[in-house]
């Protein structure tokens, strides 16, 4: 742990150096203060937002979209990917549709979704879930197809049955792939949540960043941007931790 922290020092020092350089550049008049306030000014806004508790509402609004959309999209992706990997009939039925849907940037689906689902959370969560589904689905499919023949035959000779084999053999064996897909999707979930908030002009971090920019509250805009970056960082760290716990058995294979 200490070594891990130590290894972070050069990278963090570099960021500190950049911030100091920016501070100096703004003070020296090299950068227009109206467009890029000095980091110290942004820090002051962040402190305000933190102490007043103002940060919590929008933060939770965005996190809620991310979590619910991520959970739904992952569930659908895992279920469909498993079905397609296990039953060739399901694969033949769904594969063309999946291949057609997959390359569409899911951001482009937000406007049509707004027509059907309105501007509320249902639409935003659906957008997030759609973006999450495909990477999870494709990785799950690959994982399920790659399960060791010997493991599957062991399940058969012991008479474990399809449901039990899927749940206790195939899914755990595919878990490294599934989690890799989910890791990709987590980033997409945040992107779609922020974008949906911007497009609907309602609630959350995405909306605030756009709103502050339009209101020329530039320091506030940067402060919310910093908060968004921290959210991404925290989500990734949380996922990495959960992943290493779930795959503890893989350490020495």
């Amino acid at each position, binding site marked *: 742990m200490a070594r891990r922290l130590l290894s972070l020092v050069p990278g963090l020092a570099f960021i500190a150096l950049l911030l100091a350089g920016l501070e100096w550049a703004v003070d020296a008049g090299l950068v227009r203060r109206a467009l890029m306030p000095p980091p110290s000014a942004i820090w002051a806004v962040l402190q305000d937002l933190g102490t007043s508790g103002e940060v919590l509402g929008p933060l939770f609004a965005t996190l809620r979209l991310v979590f619910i959309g991520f959970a739904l999209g992952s569930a659908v992706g895992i279920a469909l990917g498993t079905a397609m990997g296990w039953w060739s009939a399901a694969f033949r039925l769904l594969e063309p549709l999946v291949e057609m849907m997959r390359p569409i940037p899911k951001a482009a689906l937000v406007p049509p979704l707004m027509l059907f689902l309105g501007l509320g959370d249902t639409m935003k969560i659906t957008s997030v879930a759609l973006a999450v589904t495909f990477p999870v689905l494709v990785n799950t499919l690959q994982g399920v197809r790659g399960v*060791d023949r*010997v*493991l599957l*035959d*062991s399940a*058969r*000779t*012991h*008479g*474990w*049955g399809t449901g*039990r084999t899927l749940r*206790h*053999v195939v899914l*755990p064996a595919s*878990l490294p792939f599934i989690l890799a897909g989910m890791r990709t999707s987590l980033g997409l979930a945040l992107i779609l949540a922020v974008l949906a908030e911007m497009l609907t002009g309602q609630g959350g971090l995405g909306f605030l960043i756009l709103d502050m920019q339009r209101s020329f509250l530039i320091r506030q805009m940067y402060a919310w941007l910093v908060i968004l970056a921290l959210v991404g960082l925290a989500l990734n760290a949380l996922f990495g931790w959960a992943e290493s716990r779930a795959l503890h*058995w*893989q350490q*020495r*294979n």
Partner: protein
Amino acid sequence: MAILELEAVEKVFPGRGGPPTLAMDRLSLSVREGEFLSILGPSGCGKSTLLQIAAGLMEPSAGSVRVAGRTVSGPPPEAVYVFQQYGRSLLPWRSVRDNVAFAVEHRAGVSRAKARVLADAQLEAVGLTGFGDHFPWQLSGGMQQRVALARALAAEPRILLMDEPFSAVDALTRLDLHRLMLELWEKRGLTVVLVTHDVEEAVALSDRVALLTKRPSTIARVVETGLPRPRDPVEVRETPRFLELRHELLEALLTRGPKAGGHG
């Protein structure tokens, strides 16, 4: 009485861009209840194919397989197959105890706690007391094979089908496992069908040895060992009868193999 019968079993594999190959040609074999039978043959003669067909893991192209009088279509509940690749047959995310317990957890009336107790009993039977909390990758190859054996035993099969189960462990560990195998077979009244290319292993353990030809494989002949029971698989190697059988079977393997397939 025969517990496992293969009748005129054929296996044809579709050729990859070429003509299909006949891997097994009208092979018939009858395994008696409670016997220890080895299937002996040169590498690549289709021993594993034969065992997988017997286990219901692979379908024969023609002929039939009967277990306890019923024709097999899919793995029969009476038989459990033990893999050569023992490490790959265990669930790496489960502890040793939970791997064994998993074989009984799904039975009616077996709680999770009871399954673990049953698992510990099987682990004791294979000499792995105290290793229940380890993960498979923390154990040596021989110990992993013992776990696979304990799991198979936990399912309480009447027949154990073993595919070169001791070929990937060192010589001493193998002798150790031979002793364990005979002990378990005697205690539990199992029927064991063991596939091997090791003549000494086949003779030392078995009541009968079925000799396979090269591809397309069929049974060349079946030899009764006539060695005494109970038997120590190490000491039996010094008896004249053992040496005689070893000589006979080695000769047969070395000379018969190439001729039988018709391309020698």
